[in-house]
């Protein structure tokens, strides 16, 4: 079936480095993409989103890039800090054909570890 997946399950970086987390999606009907951060014992926390009519969106220290040609999504974190250590999930919103509601489908996740 169609799904969202991640290239790398783990990523280790040094404090101050930039981090890039990648995600592949397969459903061309997806029109909304979100990155979530999940710390241990907590629910996912929204980081940044992007709609399919955009290819780049920037937030505070984070940038999301969307390449619809190859169905690829990435999250860039600038000057990574130890507090950024968490599991990062990409998620896609799939229009359920004809309804007003989309269905959010999460990928498997990437563990980011930031070393001081």
């Amino acid at each position, binding site marked *: 079936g169609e799904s*969202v997946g991640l290239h790398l399950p783990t990523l280790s970086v040094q404090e101050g480095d930039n981090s890039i987390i990648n995600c592949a999606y397969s459903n061309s009907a997806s029109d*909304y993409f979100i990155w979530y951060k999940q710390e241990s*014992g*907590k*629910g*996912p*926390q*929204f980081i940044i*989103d992007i709609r399919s009519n955009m290819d780049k969106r920037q937030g505070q220290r984070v940038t999301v890039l969307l390449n619809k040609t190859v169905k690829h999504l990435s999250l860039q974190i600038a000057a990574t800090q130890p507090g950024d250590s968490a599991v990062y*999930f990409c*998620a896609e*919103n799939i229009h*359920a054909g004809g*309804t*007003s*509601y*989309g*269905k*959010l*489908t*999460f*990928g*498997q*996740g990437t563990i980011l570890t930031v070393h001081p």
Partner: protein
Amino acid sequence: EAGVAQSPRYKIIEKRQSVAFWCNPISGHATLYWYQQILGQGPKLLIQFQNNGVVDDSQLPKDRFSAERLKGVDSTLKIQPAKLEDSAVYLCASSFGAYNEQFFGPGTRLTVL
């Protein structure tokens, strides 16, 4: 602003027992979601409510799982009877509308022995 509240935070039961989880969404949020998150995986949507109506329950194992949101605010998710493979974190989320940002609660960690 108060976040999404869930209880209990942890629950341990024997297989074939019943269990119920409670969720109180952010005030004013019409859309409520229940997700199942198995260890090492991303959350999987079980059911989505818009006010007190079900929008999507296509991935809810209806032979054992049930959920309700009778007054369009709080929601309960029940498992009866539980199986070993139901061990997971059950996350509740809410949003103002179906295409608005979802806010997640801390989850209930269920262990079925």
